């Protein structure tokens, strides 16, 4: 019976519909499908947290309207708060309560118990199991963030808002978290998440790049990468520092940023100098300007490359 | 090094909305409002009269009592119970019941009784009120016997006129008593508690770790917290002197230097005490409560309101632990009686003892390494 009623209730497929939502000189319009992972990325101060607070009915918008699961964020805020899960950027716990007590409090806050939804947070919470009786205040930074995550995910909301959930968490645990988000997605939960990690952004179904309260772009990672209108080369050499300076000086090179063990440089697609724009033609050019032992390969842009390209405009 | 830390503390102090206002408001509130409120003077006691005699003697007696200035006739009732209702509703404080044919009894057998029932919930009011009333009745007796009193008996009571004379405060102004003590209270708050709250605030918000990581020494850190408040404390003290002079025309009889010396010693001791609390408290709430607890004890053991001599013996012995007691004695003695340094040796040694005790304890209990 439960299955049936939930189907007909959710006849429409859009979980979140936002029209001209404005708050302190930012304005956005977008829609999020049910069961979609919608990523919001952007520099600090772009308005990500404000957007989250408006959608979770914590702040009133200046103008425009938005509906979460069909409920209006201003009028039906009580309904929304029953079906929404929210993890703020600075999710503070009760420092003087133990790890387990914190979890139980948040479980009861969302009308559930630890046992009932334990399977949802098992992968992350297992790291905290050995410290169950320890006070939250005595945990290390990353551990606190993991506990906060477990507290936010201990219930099964219809829509989940996560504001930079993985800051300060080690790479392996971050991976586990995103696997958990994938499971939640398969159970039909809509997830809106903001993150500074570009590798995580590329795991989202769609990404919105936000700056100064507006969306520069809002599309699937694939579409964003395809829209990259520059040539991208990865350059390796012994002395990265010298190479970086050299490349920045080279004409035709639009931008040059370090990317792990290599440097990514961008050149105009139809640049006159590099008619046959290939890796080795670039390599010979560089060697002429005195940079030996340089290895140049053409590479596929990542979301991070697109992000930096869009921001530098 | 210390210079830069001090700069930071002062800037943060004036940028914080609440603190500067509090540091200025407190002395004025204490000096100007408090003395108006805090006095035990008993005046205009409400007297209910039940005159069953209605004779010339009874009317004369009521006249004399009303003229005394202490009492204002709040009610003239017919029966005792009627008057009692007013007592219950706190409309009147004392009932004077004059029995029927009082005048006839006096003429015939020379004695008569009047019934005084005083509401003694407030002991001072009940006690003093009835004592004043008895005094006036005593005078009235002398008046009605004036025709037949012998010369010697008259001279006997006339012979000895008892006149009280009050030194240092002839008009018994309560403000003279309270104001010097209040200055100390304000000093204690500004130099004792504000620095401690500041440190605990940094501890709770975690910004204290920023300093722990730098080569700032323990001593410099504590000094950077104390010095600003000492300076502000003495500015506030000087403002209080001016306020007392302007508002009440109260100027210290003794030398100002002595006051400042003892104030410095007291500030040293009390800020040490604040530091000890800041080392033990981990949250602001805790610090606030510990301070409230100890301040209350110090105030009531210091004779701020009523003299220590009034207290039972065990309380008096306990009162040596209150640094406030010694500085209040100093302030009052120097301010009002003009006592000099030599008269105040005990408070001097006690305050120095406190300074060493508290500051030593503060430094020992300050754990920089977590």
């Amino acid at each position, binding site marked *: 019976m439960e299955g049936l009623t939930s189907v007909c209730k959710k006849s429409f497929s859009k979980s979140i519909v936002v029209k001209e939502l404005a708050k302190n000189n930012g304005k956005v319009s977008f829609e999020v499908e049910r069961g979609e992972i919608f990523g919001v990325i952007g520099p600090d101060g772009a308005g990500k947290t404000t957007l989250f607070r408006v959608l979770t009915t914590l702040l009133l918008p200046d103008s425009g309207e938005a509906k979460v699961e069909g409920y209006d964020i201003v009028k039906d805020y009580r309904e929304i708060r029953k079906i929404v899960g929210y993890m703020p950027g600075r999710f503070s716990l009760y420092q003087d309560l133990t790890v387990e007590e914190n979890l139980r409090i948040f479980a009861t806050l969302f009308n559930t118990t630890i046992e009932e939804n334990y399977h949802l947070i098992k992968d992350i919470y297992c790291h905290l*199991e050995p410290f169950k009786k320890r006070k939250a205040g005595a945990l290390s*930074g990353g551990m606190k963030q993991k506990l906060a995550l477990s507290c936010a995910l201990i219930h099964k909301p219809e829509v989940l808002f996560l504001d930079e959930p993985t800051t300060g968490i080690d790479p392996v645990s971050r991976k586990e978290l995103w696997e958990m988000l994938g499971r939640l997605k398969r159970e039909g939960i809509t997830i809106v998440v903001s993150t500074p990690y570009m590798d995580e952004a590329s795991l989202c179904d769609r990404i919105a790049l936000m700056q100064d309260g507006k969306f520069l772009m809002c599309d699937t990672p694939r579409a964003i990468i395809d829209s990259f209108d520059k040539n991208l080369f990865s350059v390796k050499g012994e002395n990265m520092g010298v190479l970086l300076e050299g490349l920045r000086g080279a004409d035709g090179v639009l931008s040059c940023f370090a990317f792990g063990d290599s440097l990514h440089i961008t050149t105009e697609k139809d640049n006159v100098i590099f008619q046959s724009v290939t890796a080795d033609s670039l390599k010979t050019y560089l060697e002429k300007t005195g940079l030996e032992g340089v290895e140049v390969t053409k590479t596929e842009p990542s979301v991070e490359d697109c992000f930096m390209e869009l*921001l530098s405009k | *090094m210390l210079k830069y830390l001090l700069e930071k503390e002062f800037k943060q102090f004036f940028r914080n909305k609440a603190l500067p206002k509090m540091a200025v408001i407190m002395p004025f509130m204490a000096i100007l409002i408090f003395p108006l409120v805090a006095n035990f003077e008993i005046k205009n006691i409400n007297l209910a009269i039940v005159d069953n005699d209605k004779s010339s003697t009874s009317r004369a007696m009521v006249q004399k009592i009303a003229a005394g200035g202490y009492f204002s006739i709040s009610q003239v009732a017919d029966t005792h119970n009627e008057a009692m209702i007013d007592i219950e509703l706190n409309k009147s404080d004392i009932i004077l019941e004059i029995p029927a044919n009082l005048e006839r009894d006096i003429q015939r057998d020379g004695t008569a009784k009047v019934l005084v029932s005083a509401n003694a919930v407030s002991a001072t009011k009940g006690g003093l009120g009835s004592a004043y009333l008895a005094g006036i009745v005593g005078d009235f007796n002398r008046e009605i016997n004036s025709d037949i009193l012998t010369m010697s008996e008259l001279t006997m009571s006339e012979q000895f006129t008892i006149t009280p004379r009050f030194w240092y405060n002839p008009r018994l102004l309560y403000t003279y008593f309270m104001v010097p003590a209040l200055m100390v209270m304000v000093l204690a708050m500004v130099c004792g508690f504000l620095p401690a709250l500041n440190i605990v605030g940094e501890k709770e918000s975690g910004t204290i770790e920023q300093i722990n990581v730098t080569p700032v020494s323990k001593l410099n850190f504590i000094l950077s917290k104390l010095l600003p408040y000492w300076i502000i404390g003495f500015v506030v003290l000087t403002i209080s002197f001016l306020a007392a002079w302007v508002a009440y025309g109260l100027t210290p009889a003794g030398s100002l230097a002595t006051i400042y010396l003892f104030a410095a010693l007291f500030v040293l001791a009390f800020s040490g005490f604040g530091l000890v609390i800041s080392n033990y408290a981990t949250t602001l709430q805790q610090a606030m409560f510990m301070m409230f607890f100890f301040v209350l004890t110090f105030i009531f053991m210091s004779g701020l309101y009523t003299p220590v001599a009034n207290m039972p013996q065990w309380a008096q012995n306990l009162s040596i632990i209150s640094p406030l007691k010694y500085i209040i004695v100093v302030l009052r003695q120097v301010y009002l009686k003009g006592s000099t340094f030599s008269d105040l040796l005990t408070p001097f040694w006690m305050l120095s003892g406190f300074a060493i005790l508290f500051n030593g304890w503060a430094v020992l209990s300050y754990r920089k390494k977590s």
Partner: protein
Amino acid sequence: MRVIEVENLTKRFGSFTAVDNISFSVERGEIFGFLGANGAGKTTAMKMLCGLLRPTSGKGVVAGFDINRDSEKIKAAIGYMSQKFALYEDLKVWENIRLYAGIYGVPEKEATERSHRLLEELGLEKERESLVKSLPLGWRQKLAFSVSIFHRPSIVFLDEPTGGVDPVTRRQFWEMIYKAAAGGITIFVTTHYMDEAEYCNRVSIMVDGRIEALDSPALLKKEFGAVNMDDVFRKLARRSNNGLL
């Protein structure tokens, strides 16, 4: 010339061993990455090196001073910056610079001169008078880093300096790190960004309080047959016994 030398350094909190007998050394001017999962003991180890925490056992020399005996002297010779707090938010930008310059004993005249130049370099002259609170996170971190090396320390400890910072600012931050290292300042940095691990000359990875791997990123990748540092990190994770990874 070694600026940091550590021999079987250990720290126990009751029965829990946060740092279990680690030994390593760092050369002058090196960018030394100090990686590890949450709760692996990174921050505890770093606190011991900075003189913030007294070791349970083991020896260590930082900037020529012994970490057990003269931790106060170490503090004068190093810089420190952490993600949570590095600057006083209720002080203006120049006030923070002036404070830390003063604390680390940079003479006043020199401090004012260099602070002007620093603000120009960072492009923060306009923000000179604004409170640090009003600066975006990225700018705050760049300013904090410059302040932490203002007194030209021989070593600077950076605890997750770029946590939550956007990609562009993060790279600008690392360019500043490169410049500082080139200037002879040894960089001791912890991070969770695996691409940043690649920028370090050498990287140590801690698991359950022990250093399980210590080498240059390139050699580590060869040793673990990994494409990038992310892979190295994950392969090491399998060694963790109490599921800490």
